[in-house]
């Protein structure tokens, strides 16, 4: 009755679907590059002028323009732009004087760490909430969960961050304030993974670990709340579809206890759909972290992006856009493929 998760049929014919997957992924990525390239071209700031200054003579200006390759046709420029990006060259950052790619690599772990704890909270709370709401459809608990989940679609992330800081940091003193770790612990543990919680455990430094945990818990919880809202809503909707199926009625008639009908039968059937949803919300968290990181001065990619925006550091802005966009696209497409591999019905 339940489609068992069999992996082999999906992997047995990888040639067609895998090739198709790569083509779609490549085209979408190319689309992203077209957009960032065009944005880089339409900015009102003249990139040549930024280099030579406004006192340069016409010849100097033209020479610089030629050296930067801006006199070539747009299509040629685009091809060399794609080549640069593929080689990992995202240009130099005007504000940090370092290659953008290096900057991004150094800030990315901080975002990854927060988004991962966020998704753990979102899945850990969101799935049970969605299942409970569906099991008690129409009841007061269902309504309460529905409104709570809709709040996740209605509360501005930056506002919740500010209120959280005022309440739990300044008011109650339960958590630490902005930043990743207390200032006197900064740089104490050698960066192995870049994830401070993991690094401090590797170094066996309990004090740094506790400080890092107390810093990350509030922003990660707030970030997790937004994935919780989406996950709970989707779980509820999937569960309602299953609970109205005949096999559920059969199980109930046979006298299977209700908790087993819900968790053992209906929930098992929606696991595959949930993987897609969790993948999508994980990607969404990378995006949501922009606002949260700005409020919490979290030294991640979102904070890097907004700082670059204020400094009109276009290479850094576009580089961050490419990296976040690529990760987002990749997770998006992977969830699609996983769904197709894991769900026998979608293979028809």
């Amino acid at each position, binding site marked *: 009755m339940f489609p068992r998760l069999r992996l082999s049929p999906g992997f047995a014919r990888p040639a067609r679907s895998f090739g198709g997957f790569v083509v779609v992924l490549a085209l979408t990525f190319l689309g992203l590059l077209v957009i960032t390239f065009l944005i880089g071209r339409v900015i009102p700031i003249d990139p040549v002028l930024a280099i030579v200054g406004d006192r340069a003579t016409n010849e100097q200006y033209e020479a610089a323009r030629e050296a930067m390759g801006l006199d070539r046709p747009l299509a040629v420029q685009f091809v060399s732009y794609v080549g640069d990006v593929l080689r990992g060259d995202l240009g130099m950052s005007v504000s940090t004087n370092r290659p953008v790619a290096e900057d991004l690599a150094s800030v990315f772990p901080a975002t990854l760490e927060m988004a991962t704890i966020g998704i753990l909270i979102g899945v850990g709370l969101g799935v049970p909430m969605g299942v409970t709401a569906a099991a008690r459809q129409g009841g007061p608990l269902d309504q309460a969960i529905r409104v709570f989940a809709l709040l996740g679609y209605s509360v501005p992330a930056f506002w919740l961050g500010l209120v959280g800081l005022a309440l739990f940091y300044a008011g109650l003193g339960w958590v630490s304030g902005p930043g990743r770790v207390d200032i006197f612990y900064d740089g104490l543990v050698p960066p192995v993974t870049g994830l401070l919680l993991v690094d401090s455990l590797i170094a066996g430094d309990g004090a740094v670990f506790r400080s890092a945990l107390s810093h990350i818990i509030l922003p990660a919880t707030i970030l997790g709340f937004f994935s919780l809202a989406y996950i709970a809503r989707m779980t509820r909707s999937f569960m309602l579809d299953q609970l109205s199926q005949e096999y559920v009625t059969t199980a109930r008639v046979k006298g299977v206890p209700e908790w087993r009908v819900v968790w053992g039968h209906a929930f098992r059937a929606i696991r595959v759909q949930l993987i897609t949803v969790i993948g999508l919300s994980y990607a969404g968290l990378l995006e949501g972290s922009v606002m949260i990181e700005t409020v919490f001065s979290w030294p991640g990619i979102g904070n890097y992006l907004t700082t670059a925006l*204020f400094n009109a550091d276009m290479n850094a802005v576009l580089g961050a856009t490419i990296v976040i966009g690529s990760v987002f696209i990749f997770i998006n497409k992977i969830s699609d493929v996983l769904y197709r591999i894991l769900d026998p019905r979608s293979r028809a």
Partner: protein
Amino acid sequence: MTRLAAWLTDDAPASRAQANLGRAYQVGQRLLRNPLSALGLAIIVLLIACAAFAPWIAPYSPVGQDLGQRLLPPSAEHWMGTDELGRDIFSRVVHGARLTLLIVALVVVISAPIGLILGAVSGYFGGWTDRILMGVTDVFLSMPKLILALAFVAALGPGIENAIIAIAITAWPPYARIARAETLTFRNAEFVAAARMAGASHTRIVGLHILPLCMSSTIIRVTLDMAGIILTAAGLGFLGLGAQPPLPEWGAMISRGRSFILDQWWVATMPGFAIILVSLGFCFLGDGLRDVLAPKSENRR
């Protein structure tokens, strides 16, 4: 009243207006039966009223400064307190309703037609037109909206107009998907064949016969998207990339209150409540509309 209701629910409407009004009446009736969607509708009506009558509702000017009255806590005179320039926050929030309504209206007016036309053309002609247009739509759909909007604003420069354009550029793809799906179901319908045989042009068929049928799904989608649009606009305002001071835009107001959040909490929190209330209102209304207009649609619940 009963005669009006009878006229509206007449099984054989005498005119097109009567039929349309009757349908609207029935949708409204069913909408009001669900408490959450009724609440949502009430919130949206309140928002529109605030925007329309802002100068009469607001007790003070939204921009008038009074440095002697700065950073006062909420009281009978200043319901939501005052900000760092002594401006009444309640008055600014009320006037902010105008900006919020303006932003969402403009974003929808720009993005919905783009999406609808692209989707309808894509579904109607099929073949390579369809593949290319839907390919572009897919590219946009699989990209992070907020990041893309940020990059666009970075290129266009800060300001409320550019924020609206940037959000609209990222908001159209879902409408294209909807219009395409609906068009595919009607493309081979007899009324389309009849119109074609009567000599109607492609433009006329798509514009007058197909697009109107995409309306109810679009309305649902637009209502559900409103909260996202409001949050993105407020986020841009918060980062200083959207509406510029002294405009009483809610996100920008929160940004100003950020420096006082620990001592004068009301400056940043009050506009946030307005954002939450309005976004929730659109969510409730959208959920309700979906249940009433498209009980079996794919974006159910």
